[in-house]
């Protein structure tokens, strides 16, 4: 028996969310008296994998097959399944991402496991196995009882705070058997903003709305984000009008984020927007309309013209950071 944790890398480095998954898996393993084993796919720096030991992994399996660098859904699901079988894993833990959201269900069917996604806290195992998960697009939580011997769990950001301690883990090469059908979906091209902070992983986010009047005015949003080490985001109308790329759209039908600091500039705060951001720890709203509904969901607010307030805020932040 063991707990398997899927590790995702970005540009060869282990994603921060995967550290949370390891810490989460290690807690479950501790509760049931087993061990947490990590599985990573594609090209990942080996020292990063060994370091997973410090977050609770007793061993790290690595399938270095370069074909997996494409993040293929079918192929990755099959590798994770084979690792789970090899390690007799009863529980599989993964941190939510574009890829994990797509593979969790496929692995669950292969394993004959129950599957539950978007889990925000450690399970309650006092009577069965009950997890708390986000529902109604950030507007509520549900306690869900997960039956069966095998479980697949995907966790939301901040489901646990990983603490670095202990020793490095040994990294073992693992070779999964993959066939052409696993690679039936071909990646022909990828368009990715290199070097930017990935929005779902970002600890701080600065977001702009229609109040900015046009894409040419995003320079000040980027400047503010840069001063904070934050990622940039936008509201749905902004993405619909193609002022900003779709992968920056946060809200009900966009990305759901939970940074420690969310600064919204020129966004009125429609309920659909709040659904994507209301699990942020601290929300700052800058809007010239004192009646903007967003102020009701904010911790700090400034009623003022974004074109005056934002550059001043950037300067003030630069002065203290």
């Amino acid at each position: 028996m063991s707990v398997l944790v899927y590790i995702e890398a970005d540009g060869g480095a282990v994603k921060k969310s995967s550290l949370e998954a390891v810490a989460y898996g290690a807690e479950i393993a501790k509760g049931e008296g087993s061990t947490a084993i990590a599985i990573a796919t594609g090209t990942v720096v080996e020292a990063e994998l060994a370091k997973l030991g410090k977050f609770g992994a007793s061993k790290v399996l690595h399938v270095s097959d370069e074909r997996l660098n494409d993040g293929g859904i079918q192929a990755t699901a099959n590798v994770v399944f084979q690792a789970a079988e090899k390690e007799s894993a009863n529980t599989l833990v993964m941190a939510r991402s574009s890829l994990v959201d797509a593979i969790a269900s496929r692995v669950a069917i292969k394993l004959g496991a129950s599957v539950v996604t978007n889990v925000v806290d450690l399970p309650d195992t006092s009577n069965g196995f009950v997890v708390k998960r986000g529902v109604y697009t950030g507007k509520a939580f549900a306690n869900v009882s997960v039956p069966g011997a095998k479980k697949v769990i995907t966790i939301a950001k901040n489901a646990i705070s990983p603490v670095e301690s202990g020793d490095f883990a040994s990294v073992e090469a693992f070779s999964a058997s993959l066939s052409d059908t696993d690679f039936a979906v071909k990646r022909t091209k990828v368009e990715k903003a290199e070097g930017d902070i990935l929005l779902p992983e970002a600890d701080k986010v600065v977001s702009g709305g229609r109040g900015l009047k046009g894409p040419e005015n995003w320079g000040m949003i980027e400047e503010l984000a840069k001063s904070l080490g934050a990622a940039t985001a936008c509201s749905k109308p902004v993405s619909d009008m193609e002022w900003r790329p779709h992968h920056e759209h946060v809200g009900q039908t966009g990305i759901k984020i939970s940074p420690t600091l969310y600064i919204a500039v020129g966004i009125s705060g429609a309920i659909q927007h709040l659904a994507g951001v209301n699990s942020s720890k601290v929300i700052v709203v800058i809007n010239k309309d004192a009646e903007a509904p967003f102020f009701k969901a904010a911790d700090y607010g400034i009623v003022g013209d974004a074109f005056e307030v934002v550059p001043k805020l950037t300067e003030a932040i630069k002065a203290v950071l």
Partner: protein
Amino acid sequence: MKILVCISHVPDTTTKIKFDGNKLDENGVQFIIGPYDDYALARAVEIQGEKGATVTVLNVGTASTEPTIRKALAIGADDAIRVDAEPTDAMFVAKQIVAVAKAENYDMILMGRESSDFNGGLVHGLVGEMMGWPSIAPCMKLELNGDSATMAREIEGGKEYLEVGLPFVAGVQEPIAEWKIPNMRGIMMARKKPLKVIPPVEVEGVTEYQSFSLPEGKSECKMIDPDNIGELVNLLKNEAKVL
């Protein structure tokens, strides 16, 4: 070409969520086609116009979902199937879809990337794996070329372009198509379109929703004078401790 579009029946996105004991308080709640599913339906209807496909909508739900299904027919689906059951969890719903799909020869199964009520995001992958088909999500662009398709899929920080042979399952999101609003002719025609009601297949070992809770409310928003920006930085640093 045959397309199956799976739709959920969910509270309108502007709904203030409240619970009545262990259930959603449906008092005054408007129900709609799941917003992501609505994109899947819109793209399927476009393909129907471009290539002459048959579009079947499928919903797993009690009789209360029929107005939502009729709306999908009014938007342009040719016929509908309702699996007469409470959709208890993703595995339950996926197994109903697979039971329908295995009896037919669909070229693709489209649905939203997730339902906006339970946000599981699982059904496309569950169906894909059980059918032995590829599943792609979140799919934001879908073009057909003969017996294959090109897609754009959203990844962190960008998108990837994919090529996939038919059949497949896709869980979609914007900007794959524009939502379609039914016109009067569509609404009239929808009344006569076939809506078949079938019993569910049995599914064991589903997850069980025991209770619901609401997020903790925010305390009062602290307003800061725009001429005193330093105060905001000070509060973020020393009070909220996020800088």
